[in-house]
């Protein structure tokens, strides 16, 4: 099976966030980036399927220069090749333009399956996979927590997470797009050998023209929404903060739970 995996590079959840100069995003200087959490599960699932079916995994990402590092990491984990959409025409868009560009790059090669994470930890649209599916005219499922391939019948059985701890079980015809939820499997670590091999693997950088995509429908010009500003939430309306070293704070807390909240 040939499997395409779309990954996004996002700020590390532990990163200290500061506003960018124009107030529409965060300052990316000195920020550390990682592969989006649910995408790591999508990649792992793809690698496992490829191993079982004697297939291969090609990894795709849209984003600036820094994204190369995430692609290298995916190559070290076992993807055979990477496609980096970093032409300026691709950047600065919204979910629709990102999905359109990725679908164009995927369609240019031909795959049996596309895996993405279910949602990015930064912007969190949760829609890129289904937009790609719409562009390709393939079935899709969001929040996939179980994948059973039936290659002979060109089907895949998926468990789709629902609210409150239930899964919906359904069959999709292949080719399909699966938007993987975190927790589906146990992502592997890169081996030293994998890291060495990754250095020799190809990262191609096609532009819109190479993919037959009209630039008007991409990036900022194709976007249907724009960010006005980003901000930190108001503080101060929240918790009563308890000061002091660990021991003092702990004592104060217990006292307050007994005498003020009266729940102990």
């Amino acid at each position, binding site marked *: 099976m040939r499997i395409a995996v779309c990954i996004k590079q996002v*700020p590390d*959840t532990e990163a200290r*966030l500061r506003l960018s100069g124009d107030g529409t995003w*965060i300052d990316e200087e000195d920020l550390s980036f990682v592969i989006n*959490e649910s995408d790591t599960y999508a990649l792992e699932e793809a690698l496992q399927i490829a191993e079982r079916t004697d297939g291969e995994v090609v990894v795709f990402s849209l984003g600036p220069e820094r994204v190369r590092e995430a692609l290298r990491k995916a190559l070290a984990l076992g993807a055979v090749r990477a496609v980096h959409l970093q032409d300026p025409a691709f950047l600065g868009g919204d*979910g*629709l333009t990102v*999905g359109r560009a990725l679908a164009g790059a995927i369609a240019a090669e031909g795959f049996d399956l596309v895996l993405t994470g279910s949602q990015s930890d930064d912007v*969190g*649209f*949760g*829609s890129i996979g*289904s*937009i790609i599916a*719409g*562009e390709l005219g393939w*079935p*899709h499922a969001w*929040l996939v927590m179980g994948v059973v391939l039936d290659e002979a019948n060109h089907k895949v*059985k998926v468990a*789709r*997470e*629902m*609210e*409150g*701890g239930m*899964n*919906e*079980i*359904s*069959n999709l015809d292949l080719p399909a797009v699966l938007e993987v*939820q975190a*927790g589906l499997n146990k992502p592997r670590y890169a081996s030293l050998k994998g890291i060495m091999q990754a250095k020799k693997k190809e990262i191609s950088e096609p532009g819109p023209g190479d993919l037959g995509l009209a630039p008007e429908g991409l990036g900022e010009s194709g976007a*249907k*929404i*724009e960010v*006005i*500003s*980003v*901000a*930190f*939430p108001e*503080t101060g309306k*929240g*918790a*009563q*903060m*308890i000061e002091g070293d*660990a021991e003092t*704070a*702990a*004592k104060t*807390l*217990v*006292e307050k*739970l*007994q005498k003020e*909240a009266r*729940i*102990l």
Partner: protein
Amino acid sequence: MSKKIWIVLQQRDGKIHKMAWEAVRAGQILAAEVGGTAEAVLLGSGLEEAASEVGQCSLAAVHVADDANLAEYTPGRFVRTLEAAINAAQPAYVLFPHTYQTVDFLGRLAQSLDAALVPEVVAFETVDGSVEWQRPILGGKMFAKVRAKGSGPVLVSLQSGAYSADEVEKGSAPIESLNLDYADMAADREILGVEEAAGGEVDLSQAPVIVSVGRGLGDEEKMPIMQDLADALGAELGASRPVIDSGWLPRDRQIGSSGQTVTPKLYVAAGISGAIQHLVGMKGSQVIVAINKDASAPIFNVADYGIVGDLHEVVPAVTAALKEASGD
């Protein structure tokens, strides 16, 4: 022409989802702000009672797509139905509850309509005639304000709790049937059934005290400090999703939108940032204590008491203070 605001309601077996009522309220507010009319849309099969229930709200119409082909949700049929209906009626805004079902198909609907997509909205306001939508980013650590550009419908999903279902204005709305050719629409998914994900034993919904642990614990080996605190409080252990995903605790301990919803007397969250998917599962707790090394973590916005510090020091200190207070 006055702007149409559509609210697409989610129902199962004729029962309207709570978040769909919240979306109705949001639609009524939006209609008042932009000088438009709010109209509801219901998709499913056997919807007579549900439609008449929705018809008792202050809405300009309830559009019903009632057909055996829509009895089960499938993205294929729901997208085709809504696409045809939206293209015909041209609503300016289409609101949805931000449920897992909505997210499953909303991107696809936006793609097929080439429409602006604004998921997970928690607030909106009208500024100079254009609507500014507010949504959380970066796990709730920040918020973004966005607006649609160009023409065409704007698809918006509303996060749980942003608007109040109790404040839906009552009234009376005509019920109109959407006559579409449902038989022509491919399901694109063969539903086989529904099963329990966790298969677990633990019911946290009745626990009076819960000690909940997040990724901030750092290492599975450190779990005993959390267990000790739980023991000292006579509490059950709960966790955020990453703790479960990493296999540190079984899935039946997960709290949040894809886990259990709890309302204990006391909820202690240690090393949990406070992403919305976690908050919806625990914000109804009577007293919330948060322990986090990051003073700006969103969990402190819902907590009653907060301690900024390293949980590896604070948690054992609280355990010790509890033991001391109880005279052990």
